[in-house]
């Protein structure tokens, strides 16, 4: 029995056919085996996990029935867990110990979840393949010669390897969704503001969101329910009431969430070169939705093709500001004696040595875009185009309930095949960037109509705060066996 599949794991824990300590032990053993094969972890938290599992078992014995109680969860190493290292997969933070926990982590632990590991990522979340890490690449468990996607590739790989039931990722321009697609799992980027960013190391503050990753929509719903909601410690946290995502999903099963569902497919997809397997899955999903009573139409998001330059101006500008805090004084490796260097020299040396190539590149790019004489031409203009992208979504949702695209134009690519050409690497996020810029929720889930050799992910995007709709639609599809999930 696959106890690490969330719904089965939950059922087994509820029936007491397995204890959380047993389940956690199994999860830890699998993680150790995966680490040698795929390198998905920055840390395996054995002591913390077994202690949390024992507490969860005690809570269950006392009558507690919280959905996440005793369930093993992995957390991306960009999210603080008090007392544990948080490296952002960066050399500049290799010894950094989190002085407090992120709100999402506090909420998970309060719900009784067992945090078993910290997962690897592209440094500070900057990448689409998990090759931009100071601690080695992560391999895709479904084909170790290929990338797991990024930047939450470690979390996606941990799930694909069957090491955990649930994982937290973070998504700035597609970092939950694209690795979910590459690893054949389900991942949700919530509406901007839905999940607190407190304790998430900032990459691009106007875009970053913590998101749930799981084998299926049910797991994502349970995880989102635990972490979502207003937080006074995040100035951009949304006041909107959070839903009982899991309960709503289960209740919706008696209804037919596909019948009458209005699905829009952007006509601008015609301008994107899709791998044949991806185009085939998109066409097959479209036909399946129609056969189940959904109304599939073409919509227009005219500024969709501008999402890539808009995103890279905005995210690099914000990153250049956010990452200025890493200066070799408050944190860092202390590689050079401060006596020998001026304070500016110390900053420059620590940052030049501590940041990897992609991070240096993006900080330089953002510094340029924000510098005198260029601010209006780049940053301000990108923010104006972002407004147009936002309006495109608002307009499209007047006619449809959800918007459908592939998650990525391709399936998992070979490791090393994109590293020399940043624009080619960035193109992997073409379909995920628009939702990030508009702040709408978006989910990636696997489909396998045409039996592709590698997993293919499809993306559904809903209006702001309509995560429940996405989870219910994907749950319905998965209960119909789409993506091999039943």
């Amino acid at each position, binding site marked *: 029995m696959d106890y690490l599949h969330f719904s089965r794991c939950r059922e087994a824990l509820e029936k007491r056919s397995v204890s959380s300590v047993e389940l956690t032990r199994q999860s830890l053993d699998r993680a150790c085996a995966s680490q040698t094969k795929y390198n998905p972890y920055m840390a395996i938290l054995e002591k913390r996990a077994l202690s949390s599992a024992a507490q969860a078992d005690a809570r269950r014995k006392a009558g507690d029935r919280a959905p996440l109680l005793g369930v093993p969860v992995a957390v991306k190493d960009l999210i603080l867990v008090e007392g544990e290292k948080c490296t952002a997969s960066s050399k500049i933070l290799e*010894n950094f*110990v989190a*002085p407090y926990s992120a709100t999402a982590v506090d909420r998970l632990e309060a719900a009784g979840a067992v945090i078993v590991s910290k997962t690897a990522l592209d440094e500070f979340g900057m990448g689409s393949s998990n090759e931009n890490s100071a601690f080695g690449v992560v391999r895709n468990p479904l084909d170790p010669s290929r990338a797991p996607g990024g930047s939450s590739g470690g979390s996606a790989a941990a799930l694909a390897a069957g090491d955990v039931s649930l994982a937290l990722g973070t998504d700035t321009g597609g970092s939950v969704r694209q690795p979910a697609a590459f690893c054949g799992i389900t991942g949700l980027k919530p509406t*901007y*503001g839905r999940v607190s960013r407190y304790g998430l190391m900032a990459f691009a503050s*106007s875009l970053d969101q913590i998101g749930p990753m799981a084998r299926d929509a049910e797991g994502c719903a349970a995880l989102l329910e635990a972490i979502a909601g*207003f937080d*006074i410690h*995040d*100035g*951009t*946290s*949304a*006041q909107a009431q959070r839903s009982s995502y899991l309960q709503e999903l289960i209740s919706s099963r008696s209804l037919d969430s596909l019948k009458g569902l209005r699905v829009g497919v952007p006509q601008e997809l015609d301008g994107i070169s899709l791998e044949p397997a991806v185009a085939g899955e998109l066409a097959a999903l479209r036909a399946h939705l129609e056969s189940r009573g959904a109304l599939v139409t073409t919509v227009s998001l005219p*500024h969709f093709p*501008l999402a*890539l*330059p808009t995103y*890279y101006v905005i995210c690099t500008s914000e990153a*250049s500001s956010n990452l*200025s805090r890493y*200066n*070799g*004084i*408050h*944190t*860092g*490796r202390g590689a050079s*004696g*401060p006596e*020998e*260097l001026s*304070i500016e020299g*110390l*900053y*420059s*040396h620590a*940052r*030049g*040595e501590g940041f990897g*190539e992609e991070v*240096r*590149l993006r*900080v*330089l*790019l953002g*510094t*340029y*875009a924000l*510098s005198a004489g260029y601010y209006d031409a*780049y940053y301000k*203009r*990108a*923010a*104006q*185009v*972002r*407004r147009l992208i936002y309006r495109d979504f608002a307009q499209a949702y007047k006619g449809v309930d959800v918007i459908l695209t592939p998650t990525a134009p391709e399936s998992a690519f070979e490791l090393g095949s994109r590293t020399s050409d*940043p*624009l080619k690497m960035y193109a992997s996020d073409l379909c995920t960037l628009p939702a990030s810029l508009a702040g709408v929720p978006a989910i990636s889930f696997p489909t396998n109509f045409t039996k592709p050799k590698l997993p293919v992910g499809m993306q559904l995007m809903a209006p702001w705060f309509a995560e429940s709709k996405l989870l219910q639609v994907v749950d319905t599809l998965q209960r119909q066996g789409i993506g091999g999930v039943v």
Partner: protein
Amino acid sequence: MSQSFDISKIARLARIELREGDEARLKDRLEKIIGSFEALQGVDVTGADPLYSLAEQSALRDDVPEAPLEREKILVNAPNSYDGCYRVGRVVRSE
């Protein structure tokens, strides 16, 4: 616009010491990316106010003092500290 790109100046502003061999390689990569930004210049943005933040409002908490983080938990991450403070090199130099 990218013709005037001076990587040494930008690196100085960004406080990033360039490594040997960095300059040419990074400049080439940066210029390619900046070239792709030019697509934004032709867009009609009339009437589009810049969207800098998606937050509904800036949620300020009540101005009530809270317990700060413990100093030791913060300083443990400093490569160089002394007597409860960060330690850095001499900032003001004598003539």
